[in-house]
């Protein structure tokens, strides 16, 4: 089993990918579970995703919170391979 530690960009990508694969709408608790992060780490990353406007929160008619991707979040997923390639090419 590959237990290589993920870097920050990889974790962000994984979280965003989880959301997009679940019809772009997921509750916070399942997202935490699927992200394979500790609660405190998840909260840090989630705060970062919100500050970068990659995700936003929506509420259904019963007041239940769902997390969804913004256009910027979709753009990050789309460009992720390119970004990783650039970082590796220039050893950044």
């Amino acid at each position, binding site marked *: 089993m590959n237990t290589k530690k993920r870097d920050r960009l990889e974790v962000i990508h994984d979280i965003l990918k989880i959301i997009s694969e679940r019809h772009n709408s997921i509750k916070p608790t399942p997202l935490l579970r699927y992200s394979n992060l500790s609660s405190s780490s998840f909260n840090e990353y989630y705060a970062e995703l919100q500050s970068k406007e990659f995700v936003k929160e929506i509420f259904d008619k019963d007041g239940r919170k769902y997390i969804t991707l913004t256009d910027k979040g979709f753009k990050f997923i789309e460009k992720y391979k*390119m970004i990783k390639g650039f970082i590796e090419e220039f050893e950044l």
Partner: protein
Amino acid sequence: MAPPIPDATFHGPNILMFSDPTIVIIELVLTLLAVAFCFLIYFKTKEVYELTKYEGIKYFRYAFLFFGISYILSFISSIAIFSRIIFGLVLPRDIFGPLFILPLGYLSTMAILYLIYSSIWKNFESRRTLIISHIVAIVLTIVTFMTRSHLILLYLQSILFILAIILRPYARKDKKKISQTRILYFLVLGVWLVNLLVLGRGRPIYPLIDISLLIASILAYIFIYYKISKWVK
């Protein structure tokens, strides 16, 4: 009254030999090309940085931004030197010197440090390392200013360059092999140092050598820009 002919005897060969206006213009055009490519690299990577806020990309961009500005200052200094050689036009050193040596010293030193730091930042605590980098750049600039000599700046930046070569294998333990990118970076740094040597001497080393080195640096920038363009559309 005709402008005074510069006294070349102390320095060796007649420096007017190296003052062919065509050579001067070629050198100036090549310097401007180096400036253009530095800024192209900076702006080409803007979107990917804004999307990721990845620190390595930030330092990489700052390196080329600062190199671009340093080349502009170097270009203006070269114009002043050649104006002195060709037209005998002497600009007041007390004003002109500090006006350029201070920002040139600081910006070019930070460009070198940012380029080095862009690939080893993960191994160091950012805030403290950046503060130390700024202090080093300021100290180098002050020493250069006090001595009024580009050559002192060249020697000090050469020491940084040599330290970077020696310390890199220890800072990046994951990669011992020297990559193509690493060679490009050393070429960019090396050519900058030669550019400083020309400035410090106040005259070209030898026109063909100067031009060849400028062409080498532009080719390095073009190649870096090409590699970026492969990934960043």
